[in-house]
């Protein structure tokens, strides 16, 4: 029914009993309710479309367990998009109740959704969420009257602070037990001949009746929110936000790295393991693999803890703040005209920025793009030239020995490649890219508790997803180098690595490890003594443009198909060797 590839999973839900649906417009806080009620944490943000597929969890009401489903947010129930089709499908699988989350700062449109939902004759409880923001805007909402109009309980909530959740659960329990007494849940859709316009009019009329503006003076955040949308002072503010973000991530990361982590690892942790292991294991290859210059216990700590973690952590500190505050959609509006020239639309900017953290969630997040063409362009751009934060961390360390100018040059090169890739793909992929249509969320100060939770969730995901490939690449590096195996392989790759790219033969490790993880294409370069600035830049270029890591390859295969994944992997490798080699050859002409 739903034009969705997860048919197996959906069929499973059709059979499931006691389903409660969590529904509503995009960006009203459904995912926050879901996390609070089930204890399962899902990433939520302050912009539309964070939930691109549904999530399910268990919720306990009284002494009975129900399955709670976090349905993707939709503006209406007309089946005009995949997300809406999914939502309607769930309504037809006999849920016992629906929690409909309403945004109290935008009552008209949310009441309209409520009216559409009402037609399905399923017991509903309404959560009138973000009531604190509505108050800040000077609105006063008569919940009693609203409940009367909608014919179901309405509970005021502030989900991020957990306010009103107990009342909501209690109301839900009562609604379910009442409907069980009356009928055996014979939910049926009462088709009405009301058209779109009539529903809108009714919604507008109800909203006007229950909501009064008692104070029309705008607060500081609302004024700031509006002025961020105007080119002046919006663009300078946006540039300031971007510069500050880079400063916090790069500067803060460097301080953490040099001030705390590097001394700790080099002077305490590594010597500790060296001493410990040399006491139990006799000298030889095996000990070298463990604690030699490239030993597992040496680069394992050095690369992961000092090179990568500080930057990953700070990136998510900054990015989660930008997400929750509502700044990102404002950036996409401001930069829409530039993004249009690149063949995509402003909304894609959020996805691409996410790619600077990690390509995997970014490629999954590109599902919000409305056409396949746009998804392909965004995913390809991210794979070709957007360095993930782990790699950026490694690049910062690599260039720190030379000049920060190299880092700036590298980012300029990455922008040039991004423009070229999107320009070419825009021309060769058939289909179209839909223009921007984006709702601007309220500007908010992120709630501390929700923010910390999200940060922890992201770090945990990172550690779980990255751990195995990172350890694997470190193991390969240690074995290659400490057993002397590298020298055999290096002979074959010599013409490319030394001849064309002008790199020392140890750089072969970087090329091999780069297949597994992006930052591992940089880390080995750090261990090479006497690298010149040109060699560092050429090596960095190969790493930046080289094929994305194994996980990205997997996600491309899953989200598109093996053909797309292979095409992207192949063309990134060729592009990386070509561009980096050209830089080397041209630079040598002048040196």
């Amino acid at each position, binding site marked *: 029914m739903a034009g969705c590839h997860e048919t197996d999973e959906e069929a499973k839900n059709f059979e499931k009993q006691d389903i409660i649906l969590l529904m509503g417009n995009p960006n009203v806080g459904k995912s926050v309710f879901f996390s609070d009620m089930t204890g399962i944490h899902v990433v939520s943000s302050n912009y539309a479309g964070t939930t691109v597929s549904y999530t399910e969890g268990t919720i306990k009401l009284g002494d009975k367990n129900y399955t709670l489903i976090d349905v993707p947010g939709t503006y209406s129930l007309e089946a005009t998009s995949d997300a809406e089709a999914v939502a309607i499908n769930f309504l037809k699988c006999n849920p016992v109740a629906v929690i409909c989350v309403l945004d109290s700062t935008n009552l008209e449109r949310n009441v309209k959704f409520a009216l559409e939902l009402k037609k399905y004759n399923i017991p509903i409880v309404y959560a009138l969420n973000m009531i604190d923001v509505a108050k800040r805007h000077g609105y006063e909402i008569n919940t009693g009257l609203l409940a009367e109009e909608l014919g179901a309980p309405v509970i005021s909530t502030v989900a991020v602070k957990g306010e009103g959740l107990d009342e909501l659960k209690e109301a839900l329990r009562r609604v379910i037990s009442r409907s069980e007494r009356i009928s055996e849940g014979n939910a049926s859709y009462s088709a009405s001949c009301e058209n779109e316009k009539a529903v809108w009019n009714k919604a507008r009329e109800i909203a006007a009746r229950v909501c009064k503006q008692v104070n029309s003076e705008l607060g500081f955040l609302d004024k700031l929110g509006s002025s961020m949308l105007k080119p002046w002072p919006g663009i300078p503010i946006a540039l300031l936000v971007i510069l500050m973000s880079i400063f916090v991530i790069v500067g803060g990361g460097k301080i953490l790295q040099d001030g705390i982590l590097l001394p700790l690892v080099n002077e305490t942790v590594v010597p500790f393991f060296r001493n410990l292991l040399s006491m139990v294991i006799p000298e030889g290859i095996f000990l070298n693999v463990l604690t030699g210059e490239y030993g597992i216990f040496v680069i394992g700590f050095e690369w992961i803890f000092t090179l990568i973690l500080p930057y990953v952590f700070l990136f998510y500190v900054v990015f989660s703040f930008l997400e929750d505050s509502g700044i990102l959609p404002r950036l996409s509006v*401001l930069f829409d005209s530039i993004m249009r020239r690149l063949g995509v639309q402003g909304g894609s900017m959020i996805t691409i920025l996410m790619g600077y953290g990690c390509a995997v969630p970014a490629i999954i997040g590109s599902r919000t793009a409305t056409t396949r063409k746009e998804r392909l362009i965004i995913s390809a751009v991210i794979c070709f030239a957007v360095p993930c934060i782990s790699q950026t961390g490694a690049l910062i360390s690599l260039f720190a020995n030379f000049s920060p100018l190299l880092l700036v040059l590298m980012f300029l090169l990455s922008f040039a490649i991004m423009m070229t890739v999107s320009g070419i793909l825009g021309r060769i992929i058939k289909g179209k890219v839909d223009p921007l*249509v984006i709702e601007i969320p309220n500007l908010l100060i992120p709630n501390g508790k929700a923010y910390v939770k999200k940060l922890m969730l992201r770090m945990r995901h990172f550690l779980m997803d990255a751990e195995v490939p990172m350890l694997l690449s470190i193991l390969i590096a240690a074995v290659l180098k400490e057993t002397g195996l590298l020298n055999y392989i290096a002979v074959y790759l010599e013409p490319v690595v030394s001849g064309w790219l002008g790199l020392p033969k140890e750089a072969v490790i970087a090329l091999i490890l780069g297949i597994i993880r992006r930052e591992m294409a940089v880390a080995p370069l750090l261990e090479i003594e006497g690298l010149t600035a040109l060699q560092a830049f050429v090596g960095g270029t190969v790493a930046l443009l080289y094929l994305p890591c194994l996980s990205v390859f997997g996600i491309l295969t899953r989200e598109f198909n093996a053909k797309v994944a292979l095409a992207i992997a192949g063309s990134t490798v060729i592009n990386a060797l070509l561009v980096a080699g050209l830089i080397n050859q041209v630079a040598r002409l002048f040196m």
Partner: protein
Amino acid sequence: MKEGKKEISPDTENSIYYARDNSQYVITSAPDMGVLKGLGIIKDARVHKVFTFKMGGPVLLRVGSREIAIGKDIAEKIMVGGK
């Protein structure tokens, strides 16, 4: 010079994209798109146009209590009349 000031074609002349900033309008016709309908941008709806971004940028509208940005290519197809 020709490039700089593009002629507005008669088809898009009355669209919200080129309408005067900071005024109320009533939509006379809008493309049949799910997103627009969901956001309340339908025939006979009242919208407040805030302004259009320069260099082919989107148009910023206020519908109800919420601001919505719409890309040029769609905004040119949303026709409006005075209030």
